[in-house]
């Protein structure tokens, strides 16, 4: 599986690692829903640490899409919320 650490790049991760990330992702979601920013930041940092430590960085010119994206912990809650809304992160589709 390929994971993108947003702003940092893409990593190849093993299924084992992905299972761990998945558990943390549930925690992150719970923290985000509860507006618990310190907990969310902590969980995201843990996820980043795992991916950077055990994942394998993809080459810059690799064009494979990621299976999952993990936001950085220094986003504010508000930014994270904007990110998960329909617009925000994604640039507007250019007019043809």
């Amino acid at each position, binding site marked *: 599986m390929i*994971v993108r650490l947003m702003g940092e790049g893409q990593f190849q991760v093993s299924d084992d690692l992905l299972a761990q990330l998945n558990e943390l*992702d549930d925690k992150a979601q719970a923290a985000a829903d509860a507006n618990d920013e310190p907990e969310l930041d902590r969980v995201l940092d843990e996820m980043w640490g795992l991916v950077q430590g055990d994942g394998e960085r993809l080459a810059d010119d690799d064009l494979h*899409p990621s299976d999952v994206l993990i936001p950085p912990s220094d986003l504010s809650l508000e930014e994270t919320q904007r990110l998960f809304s329909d617009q925000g992160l994604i640039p507007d589709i250019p007019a043809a």
Partner: protein
Amino acid sequence: MAGLMSRTSSVVKAWISKLLDRAEDPSVTLDYSYEKQLEMLQNVKRGVADVVTAKKRLELQTQKLEQELPKLDQQARAALSAGREDLARAALERKTVAQAQLQGLDQQITGLEAQQEKLLANEKRLSAKVESFRSQKEVIKAQYSAAEAQVRITEAATGIGEEMADTGLAIQRAQDKTEQMQARAAAVDELVESGALEDWTSGETSLDRELAQISTQSQVDDELAKLKGELAAGGAKKELEQ
């Protein structure tokens, strides 16, 4: 995977598939997508330049403020030896504000530097991907049937679209931060410009108002006492010498 991770990636994918639905002919899609990538890359370069400019501006301001500090010190000293404790206090208050601003600026410049480095790494990665896309698109056009090509295009375009979105977000964040800093920088500019302390009599009310919010009392008291001590010591020394 129902959490944050899957939500973000599906948002990106939705955007890409909308983009790809625009064109039916794979080679048109490829060329269109490549054009968009080049455009995006230009925007990224501009974004990086903006951040660098903002950082330079903050650095200039730091220098200006640093020059202001000894001047304010001198003015406080001069005011006190002329027996105008009120003026000395005002100058020291201003100095305290300037010091606080300097500290904030330093932190912000450091933060901006880190961001600038990240942006440059992002830009490099995006360039590498755009270049890789450019060579792949000719291969896809030449070697694959329309149906096969569509699959390959979708994958390549999603990969690069994701990088574009990610880099776009990084730029956006840097620009938001820069805007905040520029607002702050404008406030500092004002402080420095109004720092011409010659006109004490008319300036004092506005000065009081500006500084009222900031609790500088104790530091000012300390510094004032220190200055008084120095002046007294200097005076005593002179008396002894005579």
